[in-house]
């Protein structure tokens, strides 16, 4: 199959997984919360199509898309979200706290950035050639420890790529109320180069990510990939103060539609069928799995 087909399939996997998840929530079969990646799929799909297989990834609360694009198993993720013993971390972490291979996530805004910086330092000293990627949102630009980390990463020339996904909102707060000055300027102040894209096209993301990763991997120090994107669904489950007009308007930036134009209808149909089978299998198997017991 073509690269374009694979990229489409990755984005479709994320889209359908998240849709199924939201549906499961509304039937009450899931508890807790979730943060859907719907609308932002081009980011994860583009980045992980060019990231190194052994690169270290620290993701945030909105981690399902990152995890699936990383190559994670949708069944293990579904099981984790359902609190099953077979989940990625045995039901201990849930939606925001998963770990698999070199993929980690945590639900604290900003706090993961110094941790990823330390991971970059470890990879550098071990001379593995791997780099560390960390995902943050626009709202996380408000956290102080982010800037401590940028300073350290730049001072020590660490192989760290900060992926800033600006979906224009932090929960309900628009960037106009949450972010002063320039996003890119914040990185520039530390001498960290920024690859900035306003796009819903996975090929654009992939090209920019490729350049940013090459820079970081060359040993030149940290970089930032700044993606302006749109979140189609609510922040988590029901918390969406945006107007129906706004929600309709941003639908024109659907990465699936943009990229589908490059495929035949037979290909998109085949992708739908393949993904539907994967999702069904993942959720059906997970739902039949046992719950964990607390060891005494």
């Amino acid at each position: 199959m073509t690269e374009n087909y694979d990229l489409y399939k990755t984005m479709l996997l994320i889209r359908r997984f998240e849709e199924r998840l939201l549906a499961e929530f509304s039937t009450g079969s899931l508890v807790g919360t979730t943060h859907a990646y719907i609308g932002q799929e081009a980011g994860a799909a583009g980045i992980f199509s060019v990231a190194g297989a052994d690169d270290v990834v620290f993701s945030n609360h909105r981690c399902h898309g990152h995890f699936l694009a990383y190559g994670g198993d949708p069944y293990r993720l579904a099981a984790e979200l359902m609190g099953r013993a077979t989940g990625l971390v045995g039901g201990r972490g849930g939606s925001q706290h998963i770990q698999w291979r070199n993929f980690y996530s945590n639900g604290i805004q900003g706090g993961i950035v110094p941790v990823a910086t330390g991971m970059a330092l470890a990879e550098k000293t071990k001379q593995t050639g791997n780099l560390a990627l960390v995902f943050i949102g626009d709202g996380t630009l408000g956290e102080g420890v982010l800037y401590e980390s940028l300073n350290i990463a730049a001072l020590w020339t660490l192989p760290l790529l900060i992926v800033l996904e600006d979906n224009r909102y932090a929960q309900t707060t628009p960037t106009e109320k949450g972010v002063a000055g320039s996003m890119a300027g914040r990185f520039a102040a530390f001498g960290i180069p920024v690859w900035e894209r306003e796009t819903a096209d996975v090929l654009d993301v992939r090209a920019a990510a490729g350049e940013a990763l090459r820079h970081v991997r060359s040993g030149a120090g940290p970089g930032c990939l700044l993606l302006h994107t749109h979140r189609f669904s609510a922040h988590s489950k029901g918390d969406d103060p945006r107007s129906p007009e706004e929600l309709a308007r941003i639908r024109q930036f659907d990465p699936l539609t943009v990229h589908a134009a490059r495929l035949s209808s037979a290909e998109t149909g085949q992708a739908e069928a393949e993904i539907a089978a994967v999702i069904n299998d993942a959720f059906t198997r997970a739902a039949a799995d046992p719950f964990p017991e607390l060891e005494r």
Partner: protein
Amino acid sequence: METDPRVYVLGEDILDPYGGAFKVTRGLSTKFPDRVLTTPISEAGIVGVSSGMALRGLRPVAEIMFGDFVTLIADQVVNHAAKFRWMYNDSVRVPLVVRAPMGGRRGYGPTHSQSLEKMFLGVPGLKVLAPNTLGDPGGLLEAAIADDDPVLFVEHKLLYTRPLLAAGQGDLADFALETGGGPVPYFVLRPAYPASLTIATYGYNFELARQAALELMMEHEIFAELVVFSQLSPFDLEPLFASLARTLRHGSGQARRLLTVEEGGLTLGWGAEVAARAAERSDDLSRCSVRRVAARDLPIANSPRLEDAILPSVQDIVNAALELSNA
């Protein structure tokens, strides 16, 4: 650092010739220039970076210049380093040590004199250790570095210049010294005569407690056992319970008498948890008398006169012991 290339040291102003605010790292950066990293003034950043290093197979030791600044690292310790192993279902290890010089009596005032370790007691996944003059502080630090879980290593500033004590000599001449617990030792000092009271303490405050015990012995003929912990959290108090069982037999009022001594603020301190556990362990709840000697619940003043009045003293310990004995 000589034997393990995974060990790194990170902290503010730790390079030679300065060698750290308390000179504890002096010489290290000359010997291991690539593994001693001087950092910006970024406590949360230092600990976060260290926990990332630990997750990826290194063994970092992060130094916080003054223990008072542990408030800044709370998120990194509580919501990151200490959580990862359990939260990720045991799939990772976080061998991280955070060294924090705590304590007062040096006239540093309200923000450079505190003993804030009580805020980190009971944090799941975190060990809190504190050296004292009975054990080998270097050995304890090595045990902390060898530990696969994060450790907060609390060092009272006054200990940096204190000599280590030798069993059976000097002030210890009147006590038999028992120890156990392996690399993270506890110590029990038993007087020559049957004791009627147990004093539990840790760190520098053992110095005050043993002076008080001598005074109680010489001037009041009250004999106390001292139980000195190196591990504050998780709480493992078996040596204390054993001591209380012994001192019960010799107390007059048939009550266990427990006195806890610490330099942190009284409310919700180490002693509060020790007392609660001792009470839960006692078969008859009414038979456990407790006094806690700790700092007053105030900021620590700069003026020596005020500082002395706020922090626990030898006299405070003696008075509390007398009160307990007469109760």
